[in-house]
Structures are given as structure tokens and as C-alpha cells.
């Protein structure tokens, strides 16, 4: 097993501990435990960021010597995107208003799920290799966007299942970034290939456009329907994550 699998496993474990501590703190009404949970989650985010950086960087010529140590052979396709998304989906700072209560544990659920899925894919033998070269600017940007979207997903989960409003910036940033990525990809395609999505693979074409429209709908959703808005954010973020990891 490579170094990255170990790091992701460690990150998953720490995140699970953070979720458990958060729930325990809420049940015991012990604020120190809740604060501890958030500190632990920051540690998990750090571990996952190191894993993601090693994963994406192991393909670079300068790091060829360490590719065997990090277990690069297990890092094909969606695993790389999942890793980066998991690292970015863990919130580093939780507002005081969102911190109290059991629901703050939900903020770490998307990060934990993404990290767990990448770990399962990494250790599963006989996975079908992806046909195309995964490390492209669009795939990387989508993964970054999906990671921030994952953070918005956690906040939407919290908003939907409790009576706490979500912070808007992760969603706004994910939507803004996705708009920029889709727009730039569309303009480049129009210039080089004469059409908006000509010769781009259908997964990226349908996934990115669908996710962008869903985020637009989420952005336009009147804010007085808080839970409906949270559900919309949830759907949009899920679509974005799926588009970022779907192989051709």
C-alpha cells in the first residue's frame, strides 16, 4: 500500500473521529469537546491536502523518483479528483453560529465520504483503468470546484436538517469558479474548434453544463425558501462532484 493510501486512511479516521466528537459534544453539551472536534477536523484537512498534493504532483517529472513510494499506480482517474475534492471539502473555519449543536458534524460528512470513496477505489484491486489522460487543466479545475462545492454541500446538509442557515461563500465561490471554468472552456472551444462543446467528451459536456445550470437555479432560488434552497444546493453540489469524477 502506498503512502497516499495511508494518508487518506489516516484522514478518513481523523474525520470520523471529528464527526463522532462533534455529536458527543452536542449530546453532552460540552463546548470544549465540540471545539476539539473542529480542531481535529483541521488536522484531517491538513493530512488530506498533503495526500492530494502528493497524488497530483507524483506525475511530475521532478517527483518521478517518489512515484513508487506514494503508490502512483493506484492513483488513476477519479481517485485523483476525489482526493483533491476531499481535501478541499473539509471546512477549516466554522462560524460560531454554525458551531453549536449536533448539526455542525454534518459539515465534515462530504469530506469524509469523498475521502472514503477514494480510499476504497485505491485499495480495490482490478479496477478498470481510465482510457483518457486524467490530469488536464479542466479536470483539475473541476476537482477544485467540486471540493469547494463539497464544502457548500456540507453546509446545505446542515441547513436542510437543522434550522441553521448556511454560509453563502463556499456556494458562491463554487458557482463563480464553475462559471469561469465553463465559460473559458466554451470560449477556447469556440475559438479552436468552431463550436461550444465540439469534440469535448459528453461526460464533461453534459456534466459541466448540467451542474452549472443547477448552480444557477440554486443562485436564483428565492432565499425565503431556506430548506428548498438547501436542497437545491445539495443537488447542484452532488452533480458537480459526479461530473468531476465521471470517467469517459
Amino acid at each position, binding site marked *: 500500500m502506498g503512502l497516499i493510501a495511508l494518508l487518506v486512511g489516516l484522514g478518513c479516521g481523523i474525520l470520523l473521529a471529528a464527526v463522532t466528537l462533534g455529536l458527543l459534544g452536542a449530546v453532552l453539551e460540552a463546548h470544549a469537546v465540540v471545539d476539539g472536534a473542529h480542531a481535529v477536523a483541521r488536522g484531517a484537512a491538513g493530512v488530506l491536502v498533503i495526500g492530494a498534493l502528493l497524488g497530483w504532483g507524483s506525475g511530475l517529472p521532478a517527483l518521478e523518483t517518489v512515484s513508487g513510494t506514494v503508490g502512483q499506480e493506484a492513483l488513476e482517474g477519479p481517485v485523483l479528483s476525489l482526493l483533491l475534492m476531499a481535501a478541499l471539502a473539509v471546512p477549516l473555519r466554522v462560524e460560531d453560529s454554525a458551531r453549536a449543536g449536533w448539526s455542525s458534524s454534518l459539515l465534515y460528512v462530504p469530506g469524509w465520504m469523498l475521502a472514503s470513496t477514494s480510499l476504497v477505489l485505491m485499495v480495490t484491486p482490478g479496477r478498470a483503468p481510465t482510457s483518457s489522460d486524467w490530469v488536464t487543466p479542466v479536470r483539475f479545475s473541476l476537482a477544485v470546484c467540486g471540493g469547494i462545492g463539497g464544502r457548500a454541500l456540507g453546509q446545505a446538509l446542515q441547513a436542510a436538517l437543522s434550522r441553521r442557515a448556511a454560509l453563502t461563500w463556499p456556494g458562491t465561490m463554487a458557482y463563480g469558479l464553475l462559471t469561469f471554468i465553463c465559460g473559458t472552456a*466554451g470560449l477556447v472551444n469556440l475559438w479552436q*474548434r468552431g*463550436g461550444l462543446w465540439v469534440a469535448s467528451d459528453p461526460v464533461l459536456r453534459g456534466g459541466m453544463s448540467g451542474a*452549472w445550470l443547477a448552480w444557477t*437555479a440554486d443562485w436564483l432560488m428565492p432565499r425565503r425558501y431556506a430548506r428548498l434552497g438547501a436542497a437545491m444546493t445539495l443537488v447542484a453540489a452532488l452533480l458537480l462532484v459526479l461530473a468531476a469524477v465521471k470517467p469517459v
Partner: protein
Amino acid sequence: MVHLALIRGSMAEQSPDPWRVVWRFAISDRMLVVLLVGIALGLTLTAWIPQQPSSDVDYARWLSQMQARFGDATPLLQTLGLFRITSSLTFRGLLAVLAGILLLRVAEGMDRLGRGRDSAKVEGDWEEVDDWDFASLLEALRGRHYRVQRASSEAQVDRWPWSLVLPLAAHVGALLLLLGLLLFQVFGWRATDVILQERERVSLQEGAGWMALGEDGELRHDPSIVAFLGETGPGVVAEAVDAEGEPLGLVLKPDAEPSGTLRVALTGDAYFAIPSAELVVRLTPRSDEPYARADVQIYGSPTGEIIAEMVTDKGGHAAFDVSAVSDGAQVTLAFTTAPYVRATAIHNPGRLPAAVGVAVLVLGVVGSLVWTEQRFWVRESGEKVEGVGPLPAWLCPEKEEV
């Protein structure tokens, strides 16, 4: 009677104008949200369900792939139209309705932009704004680049004109993008998998455009189209001469004119004939590599008897001597490597509106995300400061909690 007329008059005043109701419904955010969700659903499905190709050549291969993937559910998916989502009437209808609604929203936005210069009526209920005194609040608002229009103890605050101009730009951009797509659909065309070899020029869409591959491998094309190269593969230029060194005519298709030089793209097994020597040549590439070796089989015609079997050199070059079937005279066959490329050509009259539309749309959306706040009001009420409208989060942090 007078009483009845008064009641009718009063009812007429109270009942809203139906056109106004329809207008409000059409430009409402809810309507746009529903439409966008519908279109998003359709587009997302295309990422998971491969869509039916437009050309008949690819259809059979695509259908067998779908049957292998979806099994017995394939006919059901086909009946539901899930293999032709983006070309379906429903999807195009949704896009048309979206364009109509965007047009109405642009008209409304222009109207609001015109009205935005003046002070508007206060809308909503006043709520207390904690931790601020009126003068320092106005100072803070100006410091954050809000436009503050003060009238005695009340002030109207907005981001005019950006809070209106940027969403308007997003709408105009989306409209231009849809116009670009429509222009391509109606007047545009696309030619895919056009096979080209060095120094070859092909005519496209019955003379509507052309493409050529230069000696340097550079693609040249009609200025009205955009063309790009795809995958490459093996190919040869074939020539044949008789014992006296006179060139012999070669034909690729039965009805074609004989030619001294023949370009053959080896996309699979390829055949050509040398009618004057009664020979047929079969070429089979050993791989898809551009400079792959090829197996050459030469048959007598019409007997079908194999006269010679050879392999081209590494790189695809070769020269063979064989005997003609008719008179036993020597025929020299020469092959020069000439890899083929698959090219795609697109004529898109909607390219410029679409490009401008995308740029304006991105600018409008990203700008709107930065300048999100709409108009609100603040006032001094005795010791307290009150606000009404969509107050920014930094002004009343308790609004963060639902």
C-alpha cells in the same frame, strides 16, 4: 344601480390586470428556476446516457454498444427518447421558452435600470439594526462603495448601477449564446472524420467549403470554416510502371478514372486495381500507427489467384516487381508512406454571437456574485437605527440564523 356601478368599479380596481399577472409570473425567479432545473436535468442525463449519433455509419456500432450496456432496458430508453435528449422537441421547446423569458427579463431589467436613478418607495417592514449609530452607519456604507441617497433621517442605499447592470449583462449574454446556438442549428454544418493525406484537398458539403493537407502536414481550409485535426493512421501513395517505365493507371473504385498515382488511407483493409495488368492489390496495415508496415497481397483478376505476398518496409515504403496476368510482362509497384489524418470541419455562423454571449454571461454572473446586494433603506428612529429590505449580512449578523 349607482351602488352596483360603484361595486363593479371597486372590483375592477382591486382585480389585477391579467397581463401584468402573466408578465410577473413569466419574469419571476421561480419560473426561471423551474426551467433551468428542467434543462439541467436533460443535459446531465446526456453525460450518463450516450446520445444517438447523427450519421448512419456510426449508428449500428452505437446501437450494439447501447444494447450491451443497457440490455433489455434499451428499447424502453429509446421509447422514452432518452437517446435523443438534446435534439428532442421538448428540450428545444424548453430552450425556446428560456429565450422568451430571458427577453422579458431583459426588458424588465432595462425598465428597472431607467427607474433606478430615482428614489423608490420603501418596501417591507422595518427592523432594528444593532450596534450602529446612524451617522457612522452611513459612513461605513459609503466606505463599502454603496450609493447612499439621504433624505433627512432616512437613506436609500444601493449598488446602482452595478446591481442592475450585471444581472442584465448575464441575461443579455445568455440570450446571445442561445442566438449563436440557433444560428448554428439553422445555417451551420459539420463534417466529421474527413480523411486527408499529404497534398490532398477535399471539397465539403457539396462545395460549401474545402480543406487541404499541406506537405508540411499543416491543415489549410476555407476561411468560412474552422477545421482541426484528429487522430492519424497509416497510408500510402501507390504507383505502378510497366517494363518500359511507363506509368500504369490505378483505380480505387470501379467507376473511378484510372490515375497514375493513388493515395490510399489504410483505415482497414484497402483494395485497388491495375486494370491494364489485370491485377488487384490488397493492403492490410499491421497497426494503427501512422508509419506502420502493411501486408501486400497481389491477386490476378478475374481469377482471384494470389500472385505475390509481401510486406512493406518499416516506415511504409516498398517497391515490388510482379508479372502481369495478361502478357506476363513485368510490373513494378512502388509504395511511398503517406499517413492519413482525420479532420473535422465546422461552419458556424453563430460563432461570434456565441463567443460574445459567453464572455458577457461570465462577466455578468461573476460580477453579480461580487455585487449581490439589492436596494435597502436605513433610518434613524429615536435612539435606534432601523433597516428594511435585503440588508447585507455584515449589517445584521443575527440574520445568518434562520
